């Protein structure tokens, strides 16, 4: 059985500025993977490649053994099942929320996938209840708080029950309670055959959302391992700008050491 995603020597540039260079990786079905890296390390670009929104200038990307190219996605026979199976939650919810009401927003994807009216109405109502946003259904998305926007953005893709969920910084800019709600939601997918790929630079959530961690650095994979292996490698994390040297004093003696926050506790 081929890997769900297979990338070989992938390069991608933004106007001659390289975002990904020679990146190769496999992601199996049902895996929960975290892509960690500092700002500009290529996490968001990689997610867009996996969602078929941009295409490699060099190298190959395939999904379930089929090439993920612009030509292939122009074919409805491939595009509809692909969009049904793979969904991306953007980092900036304002980009994703373009419909006049929350209900319309959540109904957008099912309608584009040509679901019947009855199925759309039932599924949207169910998803709004599941996400705890049923009371917002007639509200315009631009009048929501940051946490509410994020939940609506998640609801707008979860409604189609995708097999693969791509999340771009799902907890960035959220208050602690909203962060916890989003993490709970990702964890609820545990044990199912769903694949969850999360890009983040917040190490404190990695253990909760992924079993495998890929550290991205300068457009390539710098390291790959379990959450425990990666999070205990302080040298790697320091080099990848994921932790910082914490400088403080004890009894007048100043010293410094790597600094990391975990979701449940704060370690020094």
């Amino acid at each position, binding site marked *: 059985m081929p890997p769900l995603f297979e990338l070989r020597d992938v390069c991608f540039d933004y106007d001659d500025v390289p975002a990904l260079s020679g990146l190769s990786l496999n992601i199996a079905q049902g895996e929960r993977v975290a892509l960690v890296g500092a700002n500009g390390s290529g996490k968001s670009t990689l997610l867009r490649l996996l969602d078929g*929104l941009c295409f490699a200038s060099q190298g190959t990307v395939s999904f379930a053994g089929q090439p993920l190219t612009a030509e292939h996605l122009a074919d409805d026979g491939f595009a509809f099942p692909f969009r049904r199976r793979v969904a*991306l939650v953007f980092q900036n919810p*304002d*980009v994703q929320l373009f419909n*006049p009401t929350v209900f319309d927003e959540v109904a957008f994807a099912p309608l*584009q996938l040509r679901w019947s009216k009855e199925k759309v109405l039932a599924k949207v109502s169910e998803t709004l209840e599941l996400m705890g946003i049923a009371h917002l259904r*007639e509200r315009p998305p*631009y*009048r929501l708080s940051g946490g509410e926007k994020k939940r609506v953005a998640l609801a707008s893709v979860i409604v189609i029950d995708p097999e693969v969920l791509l999340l771009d910084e799902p907890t960035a800019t959220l208050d602690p309670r909203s962060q916890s709600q989003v993490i709970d939601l990702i964890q609820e997918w545990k044990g199912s055959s769903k694949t969850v790929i999360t890009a983040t630079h917040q190490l404190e959530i990695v253990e909760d959302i992924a079993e495998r961690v890929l550290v991205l650095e300068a457009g390539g994979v710098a390291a790959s391992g379990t959450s425990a292996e990666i999070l205990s490698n302080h040298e790697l994390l320091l080099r990848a700008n994921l932790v910082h040297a914490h400088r403080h004093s004890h009894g007048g003696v100043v010293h410094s050491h790597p600094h990391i926050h975990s979701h449940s506790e704060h370690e020094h």
Partner: protein
Amino acid sequence: MKRGFLEATTLGFAHALTRAMFAEQTARQRGLLQSLDPRVRLLGLFMLVLAVTLSRKLSVVAGLFALALVIAVLSKVRIATLATRVWLVVLAFTGVIALPAIFVTPGHPVAALGPVTVTEQGLCTAALLILRVETAVTFTTLLVLCTPWTHVLKALRALRLPKEAITMLAMTHRYVFLLVETASQMFESRRSRTVGTLKPAEQRHMAARTAGVLLSKSINLSNEVYLAMQSRGFRGDVHVLSDFHLTMWDYCGLLVFLLAEGIAVWMGR
């Protein structure tokens, strides 16, 4: 630091948009227009606007204006809101255009202001122009105030407006808020880092640079939004839910609108 023209205009626009959002509260009230199917509202008020533009008699347009007032009261729209947000603004703009007609239209003189003469026909022409615009804009405002924007769009779609046009309207409405908010934040950010008064030339340069950055941001935003739409299965053809149902009440409403329009057009020939 004193606010420049562009900044003041942008902030005023943002304030107006914020007020526009609260118009949705009127749309949720129980009133005459709100009780009708959005398609009937749209079609009926459009027909009345058409009757206003086709009527050549001041008395008929005045009658339609009175009808607009009755509809406003029965639809729980505050007359003070219409007066301040619609009638005064329209009077200011249309008055400038209509004013010369009072003096240049030949006819029976009723007063003399120095070398120029005010004629009866001139007064009638100016009054007809102003009242026509006031009445047409009042009907349009009633539609906007009494109908959630989503329902306006759905009604337009149900009336066979092209999907592309509906999408453009929806996106424009959605992102104008975001861009105005971004522009306001850019001005606030600039003010927080500026001490003293800038020279007019510097202010112009600053405004030009801000406009450029905003344009660049809007292009980036539109690209991102398109990708987000594609990601959720958009293939260039918009599909929307239309769950409007016409009842006997709606058919009666449509009939009343048709009768009012027919009578106004016939009497105003």
